[in-house]
């Protein structure tokens, strides 16, 4: 029976092309209308450490969560087979390099000692030996895993002979072996695979030819031996076009549509890809029509990044900077300057594991409270968070709108999971896109009361408009000159903070938090990348007789207090479960601060790996049916 939903893993050393394999498969699948989601897990390393792509494919919906075990795994090296021994489903499929059979787990130098020790202990308890051969035998005999052993050496030799290449050059085609073998078992037609290859290697004819040659040969051979056991049913997703993009790309696209003109950055994982994306799209010449240009400015540090972005904003350019935790730590003084000077600036903040360097390439949601309170003194700011690629796109636009409308710094929070995952996404809905520049003035004159107290939000002539304006981080009068007068202090302080009350009135609460489902057994309270997994968990739990709902928090300042309080109180303390990627349940603390409602149940994960569907479902059951208060999740290598 054809499959509707399928999970797979592609593993290998960093730099061996797993991402390429994943991209080609994603393109081929999208071409036939399937929905695809893939998370990439990798070390802070350029070449050699264990890295993998975890992918979900669906014929009936656009996938929004990942789970284990997987139906198919394709591994380039021995370390991947060891690391993911227990991630493959009974009756699943394993594609691996038979040449690695003799390798023992104790002889994999790149494997971290803790991982090895943990695996060895499991191997001992399952009676598994230490070599790849032993592991594969166990999977085949004990777990009923179907094994496709391939001799990478022989396969690459045929390529070397035909194209007269060195072993080193041929090694690059290990990723071709993986995607071709997977395409074979999935029953993908050759045209879609070729489409995937052409899309990935656009313009590089020789590489395309070699990939097509090797892939078509392998597909034919493997299909001859194994058939198409994982064939998918035709897609029933009603869609004509799909974007294939990462979260970083989606934010970049949103910024471009939203009129960004100045982006500053200092290289940092996992934010830098967004700036690289923008730099590749600096010139907005579309069909010969000049729509403008974006300036991507690589600075000497993150302080200069935010300072220059604020400067560009003063002159009237829509400006932003993109960073992660360590970079934002450097930006906080300037954040306060923007608050004090009522200057628009957007900080796109991709959270990774902290504190300090933490886990640079792993996901986390541990910086929410930091962004809400960063910088000394009190000033208005807006903090919003995206949970999926579509939210990331619209939020990138709205962040710039809010920054200009309310003349405040805006922090747009994302996390590494969203940033680096690859999604198939429906095209944006233009009806939902508005550009709002608030009281920005491009023409004005004379000495201008930039901080006119008659209204909380004053007209803002940009520098160069013809007006003369002053700005200072000191407390200032309406003209922007320093004053320490106590009454002026009080009025200016209140003027600034009142802008937040206006934002709270103007931005509908329904846009700041969203309730999914109406089951009364439990309420999951989450934010960011938790969204997709939580929504799928609701469906899975309903099948198990538990009906719940998910409250997705989108904006933390100004917090949608009235709506959230009402919803939380309708469930009561015992039935609200915070689901977050941190140890403090930070969004639940922000919720308590804003609503007075104290959350008492928690599902938390802080290993740096995403929350998987099966562990969330299990944890909710333990809390709702088993009466536990807190479950800490740990699945995933």
């Amino acid at each position: 029976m054809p499959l509707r939903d399928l999970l797979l893993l592609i593993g290998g050393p960093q730099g061996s092309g797993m991402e390429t394999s994943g991209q080609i498969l994603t393109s081929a699948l999208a071409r036939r209308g399937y929905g695809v989601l893939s998370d990439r897990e990798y070390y802070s390393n350029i070449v050699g450490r264990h890295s993998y792509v975890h992918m979900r494919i669906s014929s009936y919906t656009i996938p929004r969560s990942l789970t284990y075990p997987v139906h198919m795994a394709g591994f380039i090296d021995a370390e991947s087979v060891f690391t993911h021994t227990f991630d493959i489903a009974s009756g699943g499929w394993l594609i691996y390099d038979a040449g690695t059979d003799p390798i023992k787990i104790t002889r994999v130098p790149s494997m971290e000692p803790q991982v090895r020790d943990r695996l060895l202990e499991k191997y001992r308890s399952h009676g598994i030996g230490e070599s790849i051969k032993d592991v594969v035998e166990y999977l085949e005999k004990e777990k009923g895993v179907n094994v496709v052993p391939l001799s990478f050496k022989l396969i690459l030799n045929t390529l070397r002979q035909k194209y007269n290449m060195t072993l080193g050059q041929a090694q690059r085609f290990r990723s071709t072996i993986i995607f071709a073998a997977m395409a074979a078992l999935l029953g993908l037609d050759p045209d879609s695979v070729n489409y995937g290859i052409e899309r990935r290697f656009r313009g590089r004819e020789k590489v395309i030819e070699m990939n097509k040659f090797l892939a078509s040969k392998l597909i034919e051979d493997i299909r001859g031996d194994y058939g198409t056991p994982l064939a998918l049913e035709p897609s029933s997703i009603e869609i004509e076009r799909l974007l294939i993009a990462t979260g970083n790309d989606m934010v970049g696209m949103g910024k471009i549509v939203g009129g960004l003109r100045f982006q500053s950055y200092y290289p940092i994982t996992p934010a830098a890809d967004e700036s690289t994306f923008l730099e590749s799209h600096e010139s907005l010449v579309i069909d010969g029509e000049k729509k403008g240009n974006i300036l991507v400015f690589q600075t000497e540090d993150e302080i200069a990044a935010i300072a220059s972005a604020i400067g560009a904003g003063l002159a009237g350019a829509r400006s932003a900077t993109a960073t992660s935790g360590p970079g934002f730590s450097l930006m906080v003084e300037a954040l306060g300057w923007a608050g004090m000077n009522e200057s628009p600036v957007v900080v796109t903040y991709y959270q990774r594991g902290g504190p300090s360097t933490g886990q640079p390439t792993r996901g986390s949601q541990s910086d929410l409270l930091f962004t809400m309170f960063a910088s000394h003194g009190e000033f208005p700011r807006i903090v919003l968070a995206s949970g999926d690629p579509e939210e990331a796109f619209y939020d990138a636009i709205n962040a710039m709108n809010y920054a200009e409308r309310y003349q405040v710094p805006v922090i747009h929070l994302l996390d590494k999971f969203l940033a680096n995952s690859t999604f198939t996404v429906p095209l944006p809905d233009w009806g939902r896109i508005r550009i709002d520049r608030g009281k920005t003035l491009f023409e004005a004159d004379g000495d201008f009361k930039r901080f006119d107290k008659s209204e909380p939000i004053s007209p803002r002539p940009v520098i160069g408009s013809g007006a003369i304006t002053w700005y200072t981080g000191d407390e200032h009068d309406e003209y922007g000159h320093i004053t320490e007068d106590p009454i002026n202090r009080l009025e200016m302080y209140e003027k600034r903070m009142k802008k937040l009350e206006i934002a709270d009135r103007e931005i509908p609460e329904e846009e700041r938090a969203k309730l999914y489902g109406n089951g009364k057994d439990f309420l999951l309270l989450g934010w960011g990348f938790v969204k997709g997994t939580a929504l799928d968990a609701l469906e899975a739990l309903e099948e198990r007789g538990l009906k719940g709902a998910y409250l997705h928090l989108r904006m933390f300042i100004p917090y949608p207090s009235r709506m959230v309080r009402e919803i939380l109180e309708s469930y009561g303390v015992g039935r609200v479960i915070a689901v977050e990627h941190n140890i403090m349940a930070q969004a639940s603390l922000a919720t308590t601060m804003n609503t007075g409602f104290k959350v008492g149940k928690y599902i938390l994960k802080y290993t740096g790996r995403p929350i998987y569907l099966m562990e969330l479902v299990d944890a909710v059951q333990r809390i709702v049916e088993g009466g536990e208060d807190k479950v800490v999740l740990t699945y995933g290598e």
Partner: protein
Amino acid sequence: MASSVARYKTDVWSDWCPGCGDFGIVAAMQKAFAELDLDPAQTVIVSGIGCSSKTPHYIHANGVHTLHGRAIPFATGIKLANPRLTVIVNGGDGDLLGIGAGHFVAVGRRNVDITVILHNNQVYGLTKGQASPTLRRWEQVKSLPRPNIQDAVNPIALAIASGYTFVARGYSLWVDHLKELIKAAIRHKGTALIDVLQPCVTYNNLYTADFYKGRLYKLEEEPGWDPIVHEPSIDEIDEKVARAWEKALEWGQRIPVGVFYVNPHVETYEERIAKLNPLYQEKPIALQEIEEEGAPAISREDFMKFFSKYIVEVDRR
């Protein structure tokens, strides 16, 4: 066409100590602006934190008084967003060469067309006289409990090493001389530094007006002094840099002021951007139209064309 100095004055009271060198610098700036007939609305004074960084409030032009050490990146953002603006940075020695030294170097690498006026009095005045990065080793100004044991940074040498294309030194009490340097720096296309020696009458009892009297001499009065790179040949640049460097190291009985080095042949950061992206020159990014009646300038059709690489047309067969 000159305009009047009064055009560049504000009625904000300067709260500097009587006799402060900052007065001379502001006077020289106002005179220079008048002689260049700068439009105050298209001129921006960007400063950091400290006594000297109050400068923008005393000049009738756009003023941006920023964070300690960060005037240069703020100014860079303003200039790159709208290169038509005349952008001038004022900062102290602690601001530009201590906490902001990284930015001081970085702007030289880019040759952004801004002028940096360094108020150099060897002390942190507003915090009551601590040693700044330009105070020399074993010197002890009056509020130091013990002598300074850090070496000084040489602003002229650092600017040359960082790629500044106009490097000069002035003296705050020689207002007309300083005015000419400021005019030349503003006219210069590229990053310009003017290191301005100024007495701090309250906290610096070593580098006083008396100290400078008789020691300062003008480079332009030296026979044969020519700091300008006329032909952009490696040989000429090397020679001019070497001579400037030699002069930069002079201190003690004879201290040079004037223009040390000018290389007008290096492309500015703005020109580099325009080379990659000609639209940048046609209209400053700050002034480009991004919307019409709230609708984005980029339509859905534009999006599909511009991001076609990311779009897959579903073909179900």
